[in-house]
């Protein structure tokens, strides 16, 4: 399964400045593992020491926040868009 991953500005040092990269994987967890293979260091920015999504990272598969789905086990169908976004935006 091939997906497109949108990379936030603060992670683009790992992708050579690219704002979008492709990755392989049937679940979000597999996608992150594949990202790490090609962009070493990126997984540790997105995941904490226990291997969970950091609390200030939002990840969307297509339009769905993975916290409303199955978290890291959320399915990533072929051609899906994955967005990694800092959570510390918005509000009053």
């Amino acid at each position, binding site marked *: 399964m091939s997906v497109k991953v949108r990379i936030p500005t603060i992670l*683009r040092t790992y992708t050579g400045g690219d704002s979008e990269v492709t990755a392989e994987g049937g679940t979000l967890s597999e996608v992150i593992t594949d990202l790490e293979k090609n962009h070493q260091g990126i997984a540790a920015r997105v995941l904490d020491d226990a291997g969970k999504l950091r609390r200030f990272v939002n990840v969307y598969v297509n339009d769905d926040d993975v916290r409303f789905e199955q978290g890291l086990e959320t399915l990533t169908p072929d051609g899906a868009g994955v967005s990694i976004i800092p959570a510390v935006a918005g*509000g009053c």
Partner: protein
Amino acid sequence: MAAQAVEVTENASSVTLGPAVGLSCRECGERFPLGPIFACASCFGPLEVAYELPDGDPEQLRKQIEAGPHNIWRYAPLLPVPADVAEKPNLNPGFTKLVKADNLARELGVTGGLYVKDDSGNPTHSFKDRVVAIAVEAARAFGFTTLSCSSTGNLAGAVGAAARRAGFRSCVFIPHDLEAGKVVMAAVYGGDLVGIEGNYDDVNRFCSELIGDPLGEGWGFVNVNLRPYYGEGSKTLAYEICEQLGWELPDQIVIPVASGSQLTKIDKGLKELIALGLVEEKPYRIYGAQAEGCSPVSTAFKAGHDVVRPQKPDTIAKSLAIGNPADGPYVLDIARRTGGAVEDVNDEQVVDAIKLLARTEGIFAETAGGVTVGVTKKLLEEGLLDPTLSTVILNTGDGLKTLDAVAPTTGPTATIRPSLDAFRSAGLAS
């Protein structure tokens, strides 16, 4: 694109914003130079402004503040703004009324003194003018030409108005189904207003993606890439409340919670006043108020969790309808640290509370104010708020913006012919 973003940051490191000396991550403590960045590059944690605050005689500082303008710029020595900020075109919000709410206190059985900090008195009738005023100065310092935001309504109006006064273009984003009053107030200033088909969290996600795209280059999003500065505006609520109480800390404060930023910054402001010797240190309790239909933080508080699970909002309190609150974990920390609580009320209780405040104090609050008053009542009934202590309630916006919430149950007592007989017959004479 990435190179350009870095370049902006490097240029920005030479800017001067009063006592601000840099940005620091609330999670891991990493420091960054002042710039239009908002998330830690190491851990994604939120960045906040670090200061070198005045260390002189507190009495001198107090006198300097008291001699300042009757707006938030009287606290300029404690804010990330240039020293001559009061000379620049800005909406100059703040120094709103702190109303001693004796009638409401009697109704609720509060004996220790009850006050309403009424921020509907700001230029665009909500507390958002405070945070936007600070963001405008940061945008100016970083050379942005367009001001933007994701908004539940009040912020869109505040950004639209402030942009016009300060000479920026504005383009703001809101959920497509907001209250008519807020849409009109956001649109009237003439900047671009864009309705997004989705809820606030969808709008926020869109803005976060736009900021990382060439389409958003040169844009200052007040609550995204300017968020560390913007948030500091809420500290002025803490400063004003204490100054208006005669430079004293209140015992208890009840604050509405959307993203939670306001509550965390009020706590920061109170701690700064103590550190500066401007108020005498004593324990204070901070309480958060949410609507039941969007209560991710109160749900986590009551369950004893330290992680906030996002919710899909469904409440009339649209200005608080943030299902994925950025500062939620910090609200939990503060409520627990100070001995406060986070509670929620349903929509019917929100409407009742709006009417209660209007009936007792002549203050017409928007739905967020109804949430805060309703939660105050509930906390008192639950024994979580001490009626014998001084208590401040925040009203963060004007009821004229959310007429839809009360219109179905509010209207004329009678409609009569223009005659004394008709008046007498209607039973309104005494």
